[in-house]
């Protein structure tokens, strides 16, 4: 069966000079998780926290009441939020981890998120960038891209990936939207980078 909205991911590993070492297969992400559909419901229903509070579990395993109604004028010029993570920020945007615990619909965080940095076991997170939507007869799509660089001095292995949304109203919360365990772990040697491309696609 063809999906109404499909999320794909692809990893591209490069050496320190930017040469491609390996372009991995483009996989269908299996795993939007429950927070995505709950956030979606809030969007469809225009949920107002004062009249119909709705709670969603954040990445710290705390249920948070969110609302889309009311106080939006203060924020409309902001260029953060969503998946638009800045450099070094691991709270949201595309994230990577080192565990391979099976995905469940109730996952609210990566099992073991890799921290930003240059110490052992860490990776440097770039800014999240986006490719604007494109449309053809078959459908529409856009991509979110983030680069992870290993400056730790040792190998770092990625086994899981995910997408985390930054919710700014009524307070700052982070919600896991998608999580996948890689079919084959990706090991980065010191100096190597991996680019993670997420593609959101609807098809007719």
């Amino acid at each position, binding site marked *: 069966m063809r999906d109404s909205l499909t999320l794909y991911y692809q990893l591209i590993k490069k050496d320190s000079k930017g040469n491609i070492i390996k372009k991995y297969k483009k996989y269908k992400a299996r795993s939007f998780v429950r927070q995505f*559909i709950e956030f979606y419901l809030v969007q*469809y229903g225009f949920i107002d926290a004062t009249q119909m509070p709705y709670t969603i579990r954040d990445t710290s395993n705390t249920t948070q009441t969110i609302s889309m109604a009311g106080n939006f004028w203060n924020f409309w010029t902001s260029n*953060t*939020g969503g998946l638009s993570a800045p450099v070094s920020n691991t709270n949201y945007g595309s994230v990577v981890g080192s565990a391979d615990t099976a995905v469940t619909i109730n996952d609210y965080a990566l099992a073991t998120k890799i921290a930003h940095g240059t110490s052992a076991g860490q990776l440097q997170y770039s800014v999240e960038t*986006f490719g*604007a*939507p494109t*449309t053809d007869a078959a*459908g529409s799509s856009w991509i979110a891209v983030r680069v992870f660089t290993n400056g730790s001095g040792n190998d770092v292995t990625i086994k899981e990936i995910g997408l985390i949304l930054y919710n700014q109203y009524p307070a700052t919360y982070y919600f896991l939207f998608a999580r996948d365990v890689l079919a084959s772990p990706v090991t980065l040697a010191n100096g190597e980078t991996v680019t993670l491309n997420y593609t959101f696609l609807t098809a007719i």
Partner: protein
Amino acid sequence: MINAYYQLSRFNFDKGIISKGRKRTSRSFVKAFIDLLYLKMYSGMFMSVTDTAGAVIANNYGFYLPLFHCNASFGGQYNMNYLNSYGNYYTQKTLGSDYGIMVGTGTAAVITTDDNLQTLIQHGTSSGKLQYLGCMIPGDVTISAPNASFNIERLFLNSSGGDVTINEIGIYAAYFTSIYCIIRDLVSPAVTVANNEYLKVTYTIQVSV
């Protein structure tokens, strides 16, 4: 992945359920959906999206506003009034029959760039019209591993005095001052609603791991 499904049922108060259609896979999130999702995720981004009136609207408010609002009230009632940060009502007056689940008579194949139903059935009681009742989300998200889903429903009443035939359905979502078609599906075979019958259209939005 996300899947959308739809189901059409007919009933009246004398006979109860007259027919309960098969639950079918919605094929057709259209361009505005992916555009608005992009706006939602890429906060602060400006982007033009074509609304149901054919106007190209520049948007950048994605993160703070509901992009997929479809809780429309009864067809003839104005709604979409809400408070801004200064305590003032934002008085965008939109009829309940302007958004939410919509029905039409068009049979043209769905294409990616559809920004409208082909031939929208109007709200009313004259020939060829249906009364658009409220569009609602009747319950919470249902978790049944490996799935999570919720429903969007709308009732339509035929008081036109004759049959009305449904060939297409969709969801119009209200966002700020505009309305966008985010889903369009052809209904095949067509569903004919007799006078005094109700039509219930249910969309189910589901994620699965």
